[in-house]
């Protein structure tokens, strides 16, 4: 039941939010996200004791062999937690902002949270697909209505890209459905489907393209920097913090267990694509002048590394990916919060127009430095453990791949530090002169992020324990 609550609470809150006025939606959003965080932590506890009680099955479309089937494994718990925390952070950060049509804004945010949670909990392929699409629609409206100047065209591109990808996935799902012995969409039937290697060969691509577009992996990434740039920053937080994890999640939950031979066949190609993406995105990030685009490209690089690690085909790297999914989510949300703050104060996103913020906003500068370092993966921050595990896994798979991926890490350090330098150090200008430091809400959100960064960096064991079950199971299936 807890699992269902995780979906239901934001969903119902979202619907109610549409009807509220004034600061009602804000408060409701806050309450709902707090509740989901609490429940998510509750599921974690339940997972340690009685994991089976997290599963819930209800009749849905018996003719099709599809059921409303939700459940949580370690990965699911972790991602639901991430989703809940992310939305809490977002709501805290923007508590003082006033959006046009706030009720619709909060409603859509909450609905997208419901959709995301649905994706992470679905154990029925059709249901997975439906939530996958549902998570997209509110985000589409959010970006198109509250985004930047070119929002309509850019968001539309994003939507069509992902829609096309997911339709391909739908074809794959239906195909596998017909191969299952009991004509069912349940996860168990899917993993038990007798797919011959020939089928797996092309089925892999139907799924992979859908996930790759979402992550995004080179060459399916072109929507991403534009969308991140044009979206309102709270939405970008959700997009980059949680939504891209849908792609990774999809690969781990559905692609590897259901099409193991296909994945094995194509893993080299996938990894090469990822590594091209890492290097390419890093290079672009280095010459990028736009703050939002820079972080967007850095995200491509990081996600590329995670995706490569998934296909590296061993338990260690998988575990690394799983941990990193959470940590990257936290880190990147932290970064976006700071971007939001800067944008709110300065009104610009161009790096050349910034500088000297350390004097005017020292607290923000500190947070930025810590989170950036975590993003690079410095030891004792949360980013380290995941990257370490991924690299060692990748190393076991192929030295050369590891070498090229490592190049990405070095480049990441270069552009991140460059960004820090340009933003907070150096000479101030008339624009940055007027900057004020963090407000309480922002401070609270960033403090939470930094606490998580440091705690998980120093003591990652609970997280590793949480996901070890998943990585073990998946790497065996693979």
């Amino acid at each position, binding site marked *: 039941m807890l699992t269902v609550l995780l979906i239901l609470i934001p969903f119902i809150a979202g619907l109610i939010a549409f009807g509220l006025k004034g600061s009602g939606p804000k408060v409701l959003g806050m309450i709902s996200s707090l509740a989901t965080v609490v429940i998510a932590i509750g599921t974690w506890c339940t997972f340690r004791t009685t994991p089976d009680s997290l599963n819930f099955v209800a009749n849905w*479309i*018996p003719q099709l062999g599809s059921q409303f089937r939700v459940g949580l494994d370690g990965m699911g718990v972790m991602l639901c937690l991430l989703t809940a925390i992310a939305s809490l952070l977002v709501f805290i950060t923007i508590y003082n902002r006033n959006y046009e049509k706030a009720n619709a804004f909060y409603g859509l945010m909450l609905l997208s949270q419901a959709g995301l949670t649905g994706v992470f909990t679905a154990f029925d392929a059709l249901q997975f697909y*439906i939530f996958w699409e549902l998570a997209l*629609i509110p985000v589409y*409206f959010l970006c198109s209505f509250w985004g930047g100047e070119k929002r309509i065209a850019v968001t*539309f591109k994003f939507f069509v890209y992902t829609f*096309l990808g997911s339709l*391909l996935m739908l074809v794959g799902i239906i*195909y596998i*459905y017909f191969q299952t012995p009991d004509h069912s969409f349940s996860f168990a039937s899917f993993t038990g489907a007798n797919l011959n290697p020939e089928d797996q060969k092309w089925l892999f691509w139907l799924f992979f393209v859908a996930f790759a577009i979402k992550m995004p992996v080179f060459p399916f990434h072109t929507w991403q920097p534009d969308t991140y740039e044009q979206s309102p920053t709270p939405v970008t937080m959700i997009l980059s913090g949680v939504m891209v994890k849908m792609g990774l999640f999809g690969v781990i939950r559905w692609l590897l267990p259901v099409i193991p031979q296909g994945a094995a066949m194509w893993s080299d190609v996938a990894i090469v694509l990822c590594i091209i993406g890492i290097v390419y995105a890093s290079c672009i990030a280095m010459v990028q002048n736009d703050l939002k685009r820079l972080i967007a490209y850095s995200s491509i690089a990081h996600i590329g590394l995670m995706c490569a690690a998934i296909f590296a085909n061993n338990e260690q790297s998988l575990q690394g990916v799983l941990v990193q999914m959470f940590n990257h989510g936290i880190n990147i949300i932290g970064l976006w919060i700071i971007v939001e703050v800067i944008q709110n104060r300065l009104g610009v996103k161009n790096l050349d127009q910034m500088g000297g913020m350390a004097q005017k906003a020292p607290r923000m500068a500190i947070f930025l430095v810590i989170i950036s370092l975590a993003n690079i993966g410095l030891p004792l921050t949360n980013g380290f453990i995941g990257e370490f595990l991924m690299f060692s896994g990748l190393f076991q798979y192929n030295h050369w791949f590891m070498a090229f991926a490592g190049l990405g890490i070095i480049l990441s350090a270069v552009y991140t530090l460059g960004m820090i330098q340009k933003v907070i150090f150096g000479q101030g200008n008339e624009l940055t002169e007027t900057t004020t430091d963090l407000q309480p809400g922002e401070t609270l959100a960033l403090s939470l992020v930094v606490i998580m960064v440091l705690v998980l960096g120093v003591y990652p064991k609970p997280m590793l324990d949480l996901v070890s079950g998943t990585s073990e199971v998946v790497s065996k299936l693979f």
Partner: protein
Amino acid sequence: MNALISTALSGVVLMFVGLFVRNKQHIKFYAIAAILIAFIANLAQYPAVEHGGYIMYGMIEVTKFGVLFNAVALGAALLYFLLSGSEFEKVGEHVADYFALVFFILSGIMLAASFSNLLMLFLAIEIMSIPQYILAGADKKSLKSNEASLKYFLMGSFSTGILLMGITLIYGAAGTFEISGLGLGAESVHPLALCGIILMVFALSFKVSAVPFHFWTPDVYDGSPTVFTSFMSTVVKAGGFIAFLRMFHTSFAGGNISEHWTLILSIITAVTLILGNFSAVFQQSVKRMLAYSSIAQAGFMLFAVVAMNNMGAQGIILYSAAYSIATIGVFAVLMKLKDYTFEGFNGLAKKEPLLAAAVAVFLFSLAGIPVTAGFFAKYFVLSAAIQHGHILWLVIIAVLCAAISVYYYFRVIIAMYFKQGEPEVEPVSGGFKAALILAVLLVLALGLFPNLLLCWM
């Protein structure tokens, strides 16, 4: 059978109602009452056919499938009357006659869902078509309407000629008109039968406006009075498909005959999808866009015919329902606007949030976004094709086209929600809003629980 008789009689009665009822605004209520009666009459015969249909005089076969399809068609028509019934009065003075013609079309559709003899197929197609020629030209003073009517008439009767030739050739090969007893393809395929089948594919493609036999569609749909376009492009089109499906699944599915037409039909399907979608992208008028999108949707429905399995049959019912409800809804709102271009929708969300939200849901449904009926409709036809196994290339084309379709459907949503403008909207009544909400709820209900409809199969 009940429903067939009651709709046909309702048509006759409505003709006379127009002679004796002075207040034109009341005629709508008679029509709604009549269609409710037909709907109930149709459901009443469900228990009798639940465990197998029966054939009447070798002409009509009453089956569960047919009854279900009739229910969908009548339900959609009911919704159509509720939403657009008052628009009839704006077309011309012969309101009752328009309603009567719609009823005649409906009886043709019902015949198309239950024929068991080629004669009845022919009659069904004609009963469906001929009133449409009149409705297309109902706006006598408008040159566009005239053009639509003439074009539709010439093309329609041309395709009738081709259909008849097909039927005749099949008769020449089989010696009977009963579709279950044609016995084609048991041994080698008779050349006459082969020509006949191909001609029938062409003719029926004409009727359902599949490419390359679609060229009349945009002009006709564009030129006809909008209220009739709404009906012609939805319920009637579904009727064409049901005839297509019934004919080909009953008679041409067996033995080695299906391979002869499957390829042709697959190519037609593919071209329909591609051309329909690409042309819709370039339209400036929403009405015209919907016309092209109806061609594109026809491509999806053709899947069900090509796939020839149970999934396809279910799919076509669901598709008919989903597509009809959504399109009727969009048209109903479109008719309330002064400007039919995309710009005409600019800023609708601010002015009429309910209308805009409803249109958005309908367009989601047309695009096949989950939780709307359109998703399961597409899901079923895609499933049918995948189950068939040999037309996966078609599925991939369909998927690509579905992504394209998002483009033009979302243009309307973008215009409504993200663009500034002052759309000229006629004031809408509370009843209209209620009907619109009903339609939205139907779309969502079918999107969440398609088994509401399919459990009757």
